[in-house]
């Protein structure tokens, strides 16, 4: 194919029945595609558009967006490469995939950074126009890899995407730069065709997004169609692929990313409780999207407040809880550090407070846009004094919705701060998710104390040890609380030694009692065996995939996934005893590992990865194999 013939093909886009070339269709059970390009190339959009369509056609899927910490590193450089990986299949895929089958490389830098991951014989789709001398040099290539035969072990497709896009849009009134920007939709079109998926989801999105700028909407529409038709007409691809929908529980589905799920979860909390949710936050990657999202829902019973810093955000949330709303603050690692003293106040004053920590690579500024699970011990122990709080963790994007509700439920029921841990991977990654019916959600009932008879702010519920929640404005219940130790009975300031011990132990006991609310631990696999894999948080998918595969190979391995980190599930000790070995894979140096070793005196083994990336299932699989030998 030469550029000119392709251009000719592209311009046929508006004909009713475009000329198509013969190709055969291959059925696959799963595919992993990575879209990579310069930060300015729009690969996050291409990826998420392909994802949406893939979701709608009914595949299971998991995604992994990855972008640089710089807003826009210099064009064409390795530092500026942004990527989006999607794994989809006709069965549960669990993870974004270990090794891409397809790599879309929009420029030489993207090729350089990502080629190493592409499987042999994998599809390599490139924008050949971007492989000019300047870009090649910036990416550190000597020659042009598209031409020098160095890519022979891949199925290489060189498409002059820029040129084709420009020609498609030659009569558009847009400036050249804007035309050029449409190339990501051209690429999307090619991919949609290659996997035989419809364009309508993206066409609708374009209308929605650019509706107010018709030239842009039109240009992107045309680029998308041109790409699709290019696939159809250019005699470049011999095969198209089909991935059948996965069988799922009946219901209505959507795609959801973790941060979205947290925000929508908060809306659900306000509906379930009948109370306003008050989100106070200070922007920080990768948590800011929750604030953005919720700020758009001002027609619901939610308030959002962008504070001057993390401490003020935590403070405002605590103030809101004191005033009778459901206070919450969202942040990531460095922000969690700053909130420690405020969380300590909330737990001392025994007010409900939800803190969502969307973990990223640390320490310090670390790797702000990458994922990690290294805030667990900090969440549990990171305050002066004996300062126990409840800590729970979400395991997947969709689970963020339920764990957000769980966080508020526990906070209000036990009058305590609850820290919900998610991470960059599930915050930005998306998965198909069955939309729940409101009636299926666990209720979240809040009882405010209103009766002045025998009132003390310190009286405890005998089951939960929670003290009463009183809304200021309630007549006859005026009272004062604070951060100094207080009397067990009256709530007044007390420096009494024995009282302090009683209060410290009571606060601990209250958190320990949350174990009553922890659902029985589900075991994947047998209840007894050689190896138990214990996971928490976003490693869920990778662990499941690894365990399922290992069991298929006949290995004696089971797994449990912990959702409540503090307190730990009451049945965990018993489960651990039934296995010879315990493996704990974590994206840290072994934090749950320490908790489990200390609590159960079990010689558990860690599998630790700290690369800012999620586990690949194969990594866990290999370790399982080693330990089952």
């Amino acid at each position, binding site marked *: 194919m030469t550029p000119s013939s392709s251009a000719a093909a592209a311009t046929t886009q508006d004909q009713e029945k475009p000329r198509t070339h013969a190709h055969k269709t291959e059925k696959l059970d799963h595919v992993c595609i990575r879209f990579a390009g310069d930060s300015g190339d729009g690969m996050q959009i291409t990826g998420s558009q392909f994802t949406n369509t893939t*979701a709608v056609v009914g595949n299971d899927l998991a995604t992994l967006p990855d972008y640089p910490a710089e807003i826009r590193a210099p064009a064409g450089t390795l530092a500026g490469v942004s990527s989006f990986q999607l794994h989809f299949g006709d069965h549960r895929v669990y993870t974004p995939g270990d090794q891409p089958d397809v790599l879309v490389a929009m420029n030489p830098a993207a090729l350089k950074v990502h080629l190493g991951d592409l499987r042999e014989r994998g599809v390599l789709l490139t924008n050949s126009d971007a492989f000019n001398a300047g870009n090649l040099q910036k990416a550190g290539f000597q020659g042009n890899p598209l031409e020098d035969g160095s890519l022979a072990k891949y199925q290489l497709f060189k498409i002059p995407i820029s040129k084709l896009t420009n020609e498609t849009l030659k009569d558009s009134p847009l400036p050249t730069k804007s035309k050029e920007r449409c190339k990501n939709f051209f690429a999307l079109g090619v991919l949609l065709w290659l996997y035989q998926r419809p364009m309508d989801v993206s066409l609708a999105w374009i209308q929605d997004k650019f509706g107010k700028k018709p030239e842009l909407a039109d240009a992107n529409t045309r680029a998308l169609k041109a790409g699709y038709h290019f696939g159809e007409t250019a005699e470049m691809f011999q095969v198209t692929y089909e991935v059948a929908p996965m069988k799922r529980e009946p219901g209505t589905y959507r795609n959801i990313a973790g941060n979205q799920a947290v925000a929508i979860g908060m809306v659900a909390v306000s509906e379930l409780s009948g109370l306003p949710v008050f989100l106070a936050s200070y922007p920080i990657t990768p948590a800011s999207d929750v604030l953005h999202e919720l700020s758009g829902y001002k027609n619901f019973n939610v308030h959002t407040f962008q504070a001057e810093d993390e401490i003020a955000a935590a403070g*405002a949330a605590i103030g809101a809880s004191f005033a009778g709303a459901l*206070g919450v603050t969202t942040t990531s690692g460095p922000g969690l550090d700053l909130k420690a003293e405020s969380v300590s*106040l909330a737990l001392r004053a025994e007010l409900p407070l939800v803190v969502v920590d969307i973990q990223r690579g640390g320490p310090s500024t670390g790797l702000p846009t990458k994922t990690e699970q290294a805030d667990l011990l900090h969440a549990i122990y990171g305050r002066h004094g004996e300062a126990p709080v409840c800590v729970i963790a979400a395991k997947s994007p969709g689970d963020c919705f339920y764990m957000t509700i769980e966080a508020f439920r526990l906070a209000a029921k036990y009058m305590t701060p609850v820290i919900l841990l998610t991470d960059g991977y599930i915050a930005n990654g998306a998965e198909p998710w069955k939309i729940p019916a409101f009636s299926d959600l666990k209720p979240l009932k809040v009882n405010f104390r209103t009766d002045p008879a025998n009132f003390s702010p310190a009286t405890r519920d005998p089951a939960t040890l929670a003290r009463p929640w009183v809304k200021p404005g309630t007549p006859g219940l*005026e009272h004062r609380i*604070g951060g100094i130790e207080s009397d067990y009975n009256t709530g007044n300031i007390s420096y009494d030694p024995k009282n302090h011990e009683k209060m410290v132990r009571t606060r601990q006991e209250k958190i320990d009692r949350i174990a009553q609310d922890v659902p029985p631990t589900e075991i994947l696999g047998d209840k007894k065996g050689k190896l138990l894999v214990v996971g928490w948080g976003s490693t869920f998918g990778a662990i499941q995939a690894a365990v399922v595969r290992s069991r298929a190979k006949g290995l004696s391995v089971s797994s449990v996934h912990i959702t409540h980190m503090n307190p730990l599930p009451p049945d965990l000790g018993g489960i651990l005893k039934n296995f010879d070995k315990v493996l704990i894979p974590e994206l840290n140096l072994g934090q749950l590992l320490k908790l489990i070793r200390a609590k159960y005196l079990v010689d558990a083994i860690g599998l630790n990865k700290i690369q800012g990336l999620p586990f690949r299932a194969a990594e866990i699989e290999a370790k399982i194999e080693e330990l089952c030998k």
Partner: protein
Amino acid sequence: MTPTDAAPKLDKKDFVSDQDVRWCPGCGDYSILAQMQKVLPEIGLPREKFVFVSGIGCSSRFPYYVNTYGFHTIHGRAPAIASGVKLANPDLQVWVVTGDGDGLSIGGNHLMHALRRNMDLKILLFNNRIYGLTKGQYSPTSELGKKTKSTPFGSPDYPIHPITLALAAEATFVARTVDVNPKHLAETLARAAQHKGSAFVEIYQNCNIFNDGAFKNITEKDIRDDMQLVLEDGKPMIFGKDRDKGIRVNGTRLEVVQLGGAVSEKDLLVHNESDSDTTLATLLSRMHAPEMPVPMGVIRAVRRPSYHELMRSQEEDAQKKLGKGDLGKLLRDADIWDVR
């Protein structure tokens, strides 16, 4: 928030809590507490509508002694916490009690942001120019060269002027009063209570243990009338034991003039607390003793929508525009598909 007409008549003792007051005998805080308890019943709100939020410091113990809702929080963060209280429940009248350390050192930023947002809080800054509770280190309002526990050779910090700062943040209500003038104190607190929006009141307060006499040079009986300029809205600025001195604008400076002879009352600056421009207010805030008398009373009082008003009206607009939120719809506001 409007005063409830039907509220039962309250009096001072309704606002006295059952806790022993634990300040040092002779501390200026007692007088402030007494005046606050006197003013509260006159505000026209039932007791349960008041919330006192404080940070940490001697001054911040205040909420324990007032029989309303109260929250003694952590050092420096009261304005942030109180913002959450007010935004979540705008029906409450929220008072913040803070000190010169709590509000200007560790908490300076929260204070400034609360003021610039016009957060509807009544903020009382007890300025004793010292850290009382921690037993006598210098504070941001201590004088240059001050010897304290942490500065045995004298402080090298230039002090902050809280009212100047509040005006720079365009606070809508700014006032000053002093512990030893209960009447003026009560009037000023009452004015703050009435203000809609942030009200910032600096209260000179004597710490007789660690900084005794910090305000002696303006409060001693024999000199106080010469050293205090009591502001009255719409009135020319006259002061002095014999009310024979005044403040006049000279170019862009303020100067003290002797009344009588060539200078008469009509040459004097007339106080206009509702001036939207902050220039004169800022000039007043920079009158320091002993060179000048120190202005007392309401320096500025202008009306501008409060944060919670803007927030709520935005939320109402959103509801009008988008309709009352529907969770089912929100959950489906994406590409959806059905599996049967």
